């Protein structure tokens, strides 16, 4: 059982990190970014190229995964989402745009990165043993980094001027603009922050898993599931949703036949959303 709990901790932490970016974009833009998984995938490849191909330190690659994928997000906001949202108010248009972007990014990645799965050398070696359960050192390092990133993001959103402006924009765009906040800049920055986090998650997790160009769709679906559980647009809800999904998955695999695990998870989520359609946190971000 110790191994199951450790598995839940690792899966939950990684899922929480994945869910943060998508919920930030949803909260400030009201856009469900279905390209989140593809941006996660690109982040993984950025680290692979800097670390394995160019021979630079993993940590530098990780930084670049945030900056490059974040910059890609800014470009997406400026040239794709902003013009469309100015012309059309229907939400499904931005969802379709996000889906189209996902397909485009995945196809482009296949041409540029090729069909092979990629991995990076372990960032730490060795195994911790705890009451008979095994936890590789690399996973411990990743958990701590992920936790540190989550705390840093919460601090940024909660205590900095920009973070407060982002929260204000999520609650009321017009009132925020009346306070003299430059919404155009803030939207681009917020979108870039959300995609940068997706890149950072992909870059970090490539150290313990692997990455391939087809990885994005499943990540997007799970990220969407997490924010539905936690409450769309609620930062702490995304973290909670990630942990809930991680625990459900790990315990489910331990107690049920593998083919039943996600069937049961989806039934639980459907039942839960009938009772609480806004998710666990159930309120607008902020």
């Amino acid at each position, binding site marked *: 059982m110790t191994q199951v709990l450790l598995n839940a901790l690792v899966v939950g932490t990684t899922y929480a990190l994945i869910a943060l970016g998508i919920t930030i974009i949803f909260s400030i833009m009201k856009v469900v970014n279905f390209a989140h998984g593809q941006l996660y995938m690109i982040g993984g490849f950025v680290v692979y190229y800097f670390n394995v191909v160019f021979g630079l330190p993993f940590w530098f690659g990780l930084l670049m995964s945030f900056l490059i994928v974040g910059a890609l997000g800014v470009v997406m906001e400026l040239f794709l989402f902003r013009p469309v949202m100015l012309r059309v108010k229907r939400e499904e248009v931005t969802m379709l745009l996000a889906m189209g972007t996902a397909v485009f990014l995945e196809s482009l990645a296949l041409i*540029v990165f090729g069909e092979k799965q990629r991995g990076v050398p372990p960032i730490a070696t060795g195994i911790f043993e705890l009451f008979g359960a095994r936890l590789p050192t690399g996973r411990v390092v990743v958990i701590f980094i992920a936790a540190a990133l989550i705390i840093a993001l919460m601090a940024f959103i909660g205590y900095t001027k920009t973070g407060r402006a982002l929260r204000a924009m999520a609650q009321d765009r017009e009132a925020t603009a009346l306070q003299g906040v430059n919404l155009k800049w803030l939207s681009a920055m917020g979108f870039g922050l959300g995609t940068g986090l997706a890149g950072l998650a992909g870059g970090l997790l490539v150290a313990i898993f692997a990455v391939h160009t087809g990885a994005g769709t*499943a990540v997007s679906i799970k990220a969407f599931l997490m924010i539905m559980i936690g409450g769309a647009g609620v930062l702490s809800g995304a973290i909670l949703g990630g942990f809930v999904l991680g625990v459900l998955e790990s315990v489910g695999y331990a107690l049920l036949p593998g083919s039943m695990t996600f069937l049961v998870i989806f039934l639980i989520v459907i039942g839960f959303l009938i009772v609480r359609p806004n998710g666990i946190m159930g309120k607008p971000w902020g």
Partner: protein
Amino acid sequence: MLAWNTGSIRRKLMLSVAAGVLTVSGYAQAEETLKLGALGVMSGPFAGWGGVMCQTFKSRAGMWNDDGGVKIGDKTYKIDVVCVDDKADPKGAQTGAEKLISDGIKYIQGPNTDSTAESAKTVMEANKAINMPYAFSKSLYTPPASQSILGMVASYQVGPIIYKWLMDNKGIKKIAFLCENNADPLNQRNEGSAAAKGLGLEVVSDQETYESGTTDFFPVLTKVIGTSPDHIVLSGVNPSDVGPLIKAARELGFTGTMSTETGQDPKAIYEVAGEAANGFIVAGGASTEEIRSDFMVKFIERYTKDWGEWNDVAGLFVYGPEIMVQTLQKAGPAALEDTEAFKAALDGFVGTNPFLKDGGELKYVGRKDYGQPRQVSVPIVVQAVKDGQYEPLFVGALND
């Protein structure tokens, strides 16, 4: 390393652009051109199969074209390969098959999975097009079906051979099966489990599965390893999952042997799983250094030049175009218009295998399993990963 990879990307982009330009300008107006097709999953987690199949066919076609083309009857033809991505979707396979056939193509390599091959089968049979799936469903190859030819060794053919070898050489007694919750891998798991029981092995786990897109395999492997198997079979595992699965199993303390019956690239596995990948057993193609011919070396060079990096799965896929073209040459020009002439040639066809150092024959087998010659006689090469390469464990031949 930097120069190699940027070069690789540049080459890929240039090839893509060139392909587009050639398509737009409708090339080969001055020469006889034979259009052949590749239909398979060329995107997503399975791109390591269908994408490589397409690239393999194009590279082999490039070699034929560089040599002046392929002579069939009195005419010499340049080969033009048209690839269609079915995205592992049965509906995509059906429309993809229709698209290729409407383009005048009668000979198609692929699809890559049972569900897509079964879906494409109706189109192939109705339109009398020949296809070469990499799918193991027996109904594809058994009468009244006649248009599909299995392009590789099926899991139910090679699985028992590997398990027997492991029993004799590694002393395994308990075996576990793990697969994705998907039709093809589930079928392969069921067949493998039945074969293992038939050999007297104790199957300690054969009900555990994981969902497509799983990133962390610790949860599902914790349960499998908890049953204390000597050997774990990753049934029908796709190329994107195999490295993380091996790595996770070793990190969880599993010290037994592991194998799969689907084609995999050893370098990619080693890059993800590191030394944990050493000893992983795969039934693969004929590109292992110890057994490859000079011609296979040339093909590897060509593939690497075209696509930037060798993929061992191409060593399996190259058998498809090879026997397809050799059979067309034997069947003659009539087969270009009517696949009945091609099928009539299958029974007695004996070609040459250019890929093995020791040569040998290329022919159609499968009478025992399918009641008619509807399988390419790909050699059974069982190999183990060793530092990013394969070392052969043993080589066998398919029974007819």
